[in-house]
């Protein structure tokens, strides 16, 4: 088990390194560089721009820039962000918690909602409720995230005016609020982004969980439990759900890249100051060090997420644990 874990960690590190290389190449293929991008330098003579480029080492061959980046990275230095004018590390430090917060909330919301709907469906399969829910889930699952986000804004922020359009906290009042007030403020700002991110995922969780539940309900031990007179609800929640959760946890691992991608989009729609917003602005500013760092952090999240999902699956499934 421990050796397996070590191998997986090594593989993960390799994957993250490959991501760094791929992003490095892609970002340098794109036209423009951090010096060109800045409008202030549009008035500069080509010579002055060359000076700036030299100062940042952007005039060196690609391989050399990459080697230097690796050397700095090995020392724990992610480099200097051209667009944020601060170390990449500090830009990441303020963005990562926000993204984890958003994704964490979305994961909890989508799995809670998804599993709950699935249980309701599985309680009386192929009846009216199951069918209606199934159809609704299919539609929810098919709605593009962008459209969902924009529609939620139109309805809840523009028309009803009950929830904020964007941002993570109230820009003025937040620091002056009581603990309770600040919590509420955060939740209000969290509502629409999480709904946008979680509804689609919840639908796929529910679809998956329902069929897993139905499979388990057809197995012998359930029939035994029923024969012993255990009540239907206890069978469903106690026996079936516990056994049907393992595949759903695996789904969590698989859903992580999609969730992270979704978070990138949701963050740009709702101005959520996380990794996604950071990455999109870094791409448009040609902020190479920041783009690469964002891609690496994103990849690390995905790799770690998959690893955790594997471990959880192993923990939840006794048959796998022994092997």
């Amino acid at each position, binding site marked *: 088990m421990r050796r397996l874990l070590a191998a997986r960690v090594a*593989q993960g590190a*390799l*994957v*993250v390194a*490959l*991501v760094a290389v*791929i*992003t490095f190449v*892609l*970002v340098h*293929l*794109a*036209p423009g560089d951090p010096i060109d991008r800045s409008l202030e330098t549009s008035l500069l003579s080509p010579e002055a721009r060359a000076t700036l480029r030299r100062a940042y080492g952007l005039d060196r061959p690609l391989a050399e820039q990459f080697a230097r980046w690796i050397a700095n990275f090995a020392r724990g230095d992610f480099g200097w962000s051209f667009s944020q004018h601060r170390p990449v590390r500090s830009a990441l430090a303020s963005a990562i918690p926000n993204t984890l917060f958003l994704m964490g909330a979305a994961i909890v919301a989508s799995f809670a909602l998804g599993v709950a709907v699935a249980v309701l469906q599985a309680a009386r399969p192929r009846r009216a409720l199951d069918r209606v829910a199934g159809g609704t889930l*299919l*539609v929810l*699952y*098919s*709605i*593009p*995230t*962008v*459209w969902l986000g*924009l*529609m939620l*804004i*139109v309805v809840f922020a*523009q*028309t009803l005016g009950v929830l904020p359009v964007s941002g993570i906290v109230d820009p003025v009042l937040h620091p002056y609020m009581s603990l309770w007030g600040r919590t509420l403020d955060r939740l209000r700002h969290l509502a629409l982004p999480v709904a946008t991110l979680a509804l689609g995922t919840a639908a796929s969780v529910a679809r*998956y969980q329902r*069929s897993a539940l*139905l*499979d388990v309900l057809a197995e012998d031990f359930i029939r035994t439990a029923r024969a012993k007179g255990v009540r239907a609800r206890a069978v469903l929640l106690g026996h079936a759900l516990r056994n049907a959760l393992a595949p759903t946890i695996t*789904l969590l691992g*698989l859903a992580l*890249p999609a969730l*992270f*991608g979704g978070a*990138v*989009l949701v963050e740009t729609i709702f101005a959520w100051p996380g990794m*996604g917003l950071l*990455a*999109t602005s870094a*791409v*448009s500013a040609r902020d190479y060090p920041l*783009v690469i760092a*964002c*891609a690496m952090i*994103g*990849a690390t999240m*995905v*790799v770690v997420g998959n690893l955790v999902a594997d471990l959880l699956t192993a923990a939840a499934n006794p048959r796998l644990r022994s092997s």
Partner: protein
Amino acid sequence: MSAAVLVVIVLAALLAPLLAPYDPSAQPDIVALAQRPPSGAHPFGTDPLSRDVLSRVVHGGRISISIALLAALLSASIGTAYGAVAAFAGGVTDAVMMRVLDALIAIPRLLLLLLVVALWGAVSVPTLIVIIAATGWFTTSRLVRARVLALSRDDFVVAADALGVPRRRVLWRHVMPNALSPVIVAATLGVANVIALEATLSYLGLGVRPPSASWGTILQDGGDCMAACWWVTAFPGIAIVAAATAFNALGDSVRDAFDPRGEHVVA
């Protein structure tokens, strides 16, 4: 129900020139006729440039559906080829190919696409198809590889080996055809996925070039006035959701047909 929706959408896309009441890119009067709500003359209203939204949705469907079908087909092919090669080759080649795949899966697709937007901006339809396919084949190739490996341990392959049938022939004749069912399911669900993705890409600025319109770009055209001209976003939005739902439902049915026991693959 979903079959009926699918038939309607595909027919509408095929017969677009006959069904559309107007030229989808004509701007009859950009001052007086812009942004008119649905009426008898314009059942879906007009957009901010006075173009008929119904005609645009019908013609846009043509482009969106063909992009989705072709991109799904292409990405299924790339995925199948990659997965099969990895599985057949085995050993170091397989290991390397799988690590590269892990890395590709671990880069958020949207970040990749953002970089692509940076490189190309608005693109032609064939390029768009290639971009979508090139970033969408990863899961399929994993499925194919797993399926091929599982099948090559199957009794009939082992038996064929024992009988001295050339390995290559066993693989082509017996393993591949059986490995294709998850690909077909994934491709069908992929069509739905691409229909939705196309809307996202238009939002990011990677859409088809005007005057052509896809559902995604029509949505984008209405993005500035969602409250004041809801009809410009609502109708293509409904078309996208309806088409994606129909293809997802089709994917479900195909999967059930291949796999009556319900061992579902995740796509």
